[in-house]
């Protein structure tokens, strides 16, 4: 094959590359065919391991995380009950912009420092980096910014944050009852917080009735 022009040379080089890629592709696929049954087992185990990891990390968090109670605040009732879960909003879900000194954007990870005042946990500071270690009167909770004003203003904008504890699944048909109690400002969420700030719901108490995440065993 004559190789006079650069474009032909390049095309030839590409074809050599394609041939080599083809050969290794065939080797790989025949290897896959030879080990097919072992690979089926590996895929099943990989997927099972991923599910198991979700379970174990949650069980650990609930069992060993530090426990705090947060007051649930009412949200727009139209948004509250969606299917078989209740949307929970907290006092710490809306942070005054004055608590943050940096410009935040939607999706940013944020660490919020909570301080206990009269038995309630209230936000004291928030930053992209985790601050000083926790004390009995202070704890850090990790969240994700869902809305932040474009500019840092001193006039008091609001940042909204999700902590991954905004959904509580309830038995089918009982969501409406819980919705009324949330609106009557009578709901407390029991939260576990891991040392890295990740939060999980352990249970909620609504009008004196406690719904708990049952232990696995």
């Amino acid at each position, binding site marked *: 094959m004559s190789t006079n022009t650069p474009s032909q040379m390049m095309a030839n080089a590409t074809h050599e590359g394609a041939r080599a890629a083809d050969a290794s592709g065939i080797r790989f696929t025949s290897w896959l065919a030879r080990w097919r049954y072992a690979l089926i087992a590996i895929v099943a185990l990989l997927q099972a391991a991923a*599910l198991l990891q979700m*379970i174990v990390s949650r069980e650990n968090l609930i069992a060993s995380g530090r426990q705090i109670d947060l007051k649930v605040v009412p949200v727009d009732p139209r948004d509250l009950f969606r299917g078989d879960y209740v949307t929970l909003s907290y006092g710490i879900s809306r942070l005054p912009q004055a608590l943050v000194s940096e410009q935040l*954007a939607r999706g940013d990870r944020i660490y919020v420092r909570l301080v206990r005042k009269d038995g309630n946990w209230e936000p004291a500071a928030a930053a992209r980096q985790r601050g000083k270690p926790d004390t009995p009167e202070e704890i850090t909770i990790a969240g994700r910014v869902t809305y932040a004003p474009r500019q840092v203003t001193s006039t008091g904008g609001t940042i909204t944050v999700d902590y991954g504890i905004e*959904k509580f699944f309830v038995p089918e048909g009982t969501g409406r009852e819980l919705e009324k109690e949330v609106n009557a400002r009578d709901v407390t969420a029991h939260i576990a917080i891991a040392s890295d700030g990740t939060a999980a719901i352990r249970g909620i108490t609504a009008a004196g009735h406690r719904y708990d995440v049952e232990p696995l065993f």
Partner: protein
Amino acid sequence: MWISRRRLAEDLARWRANDWVTAEGESHVRHDLLERGAGPGLPVVLGILGVVLLGFAAMSFVAANWQDMPRLLRLAMIFSGLFGAYAAAAGLFARGLDGFAHAAILLGIAVFGAGIMLIAQMYHIEGHPPDAVLLWAMGGLAAGILLRSNPALAAATVLFGVWSCWELLGGSVFGIYGREGLRAVHWALLPAAAAVAVGFALNRWWPGVHLVGALLTGWLILQGYLFHGDLGHVVVALTGAAVVLGALYVSRASKGGQGQEALMVDWASAILGYGLIAAFSGLWAMQFFLRQETGALVLLAALTLALLVVVIHQGLMLGHRGAVWLGYVGFSAEIFALYVKTVGSLAGSSLFFLVAGVIVIALAAMAWWLHQAESRHAAETLS
């Protein structure tokens, strides 16, 4: 590769009539066409549809919030469903029922997704929902590549698309926050798309490669709309145009070859179409969604029509029928949109006819020039 069997049969009859092919050759080719089969049969298609239904059953089972069962039992159901599906796949492969085995793999992936949702529900995990979709897609990708399963790879492609859209649009409901605070370009989709494309290419399943092409094209066009200002659409149009030029270059360099070279031309032909769609979408948005000065509009319209004509011409020369049709559709849409935009505006119809006239004359000149160049090229090749 993309030539239909019917077309090949017609061509074969013509070649035979012209004595280009011997009777023996013709019968061999027809036999080979039959041997290659016509893709998966009805039973496998029904099997896959059945699995999709079972998948939805598993997911609605989760959604129904089965509080009456102890949690351990619920988990046992998910895990036995998962292992059961893959065991069924192994058993079906062992009996040579590969199509059904792939349906069982798809069921395994559906149960895996239902498992993720169930566990999230059990622990009231709200978290970041796209992460759950990503985990699901990764499970599908692993099954697709390791078990050479095209249905699994197709599921993974769709899930990666959902994941990317969700990451871009954000919120617990699509687009709830509107254009406020959109993320930067979601580059993470590209390695994911590359991984599924490699899986499809290893399996030599071209519809899958097209699925990835459609995913990437949609992703590219979406970026144009998600970013403020004009720059997004400009980047989309330029990227699409670069893809078109690259595909044309490869087509011309490999034209007339066999084996690997013919394969390259087929690839280039497919990629050319996606590049054209992206470039046209970008140019379309710049002309009709953004506010443009008359001069800029004329320039953009001329560029769009030139691109379409080049693609139609090259498509005809190189035998890329899909690109030719896309070109015709784009050309008609462009002319119609220009007409609608200019009529009734200040410049009115006269501007439209002026622009159209100038463009068509320019096109005629360009077509003539291209034809000359093509004849020269053909003459050189023959001599």
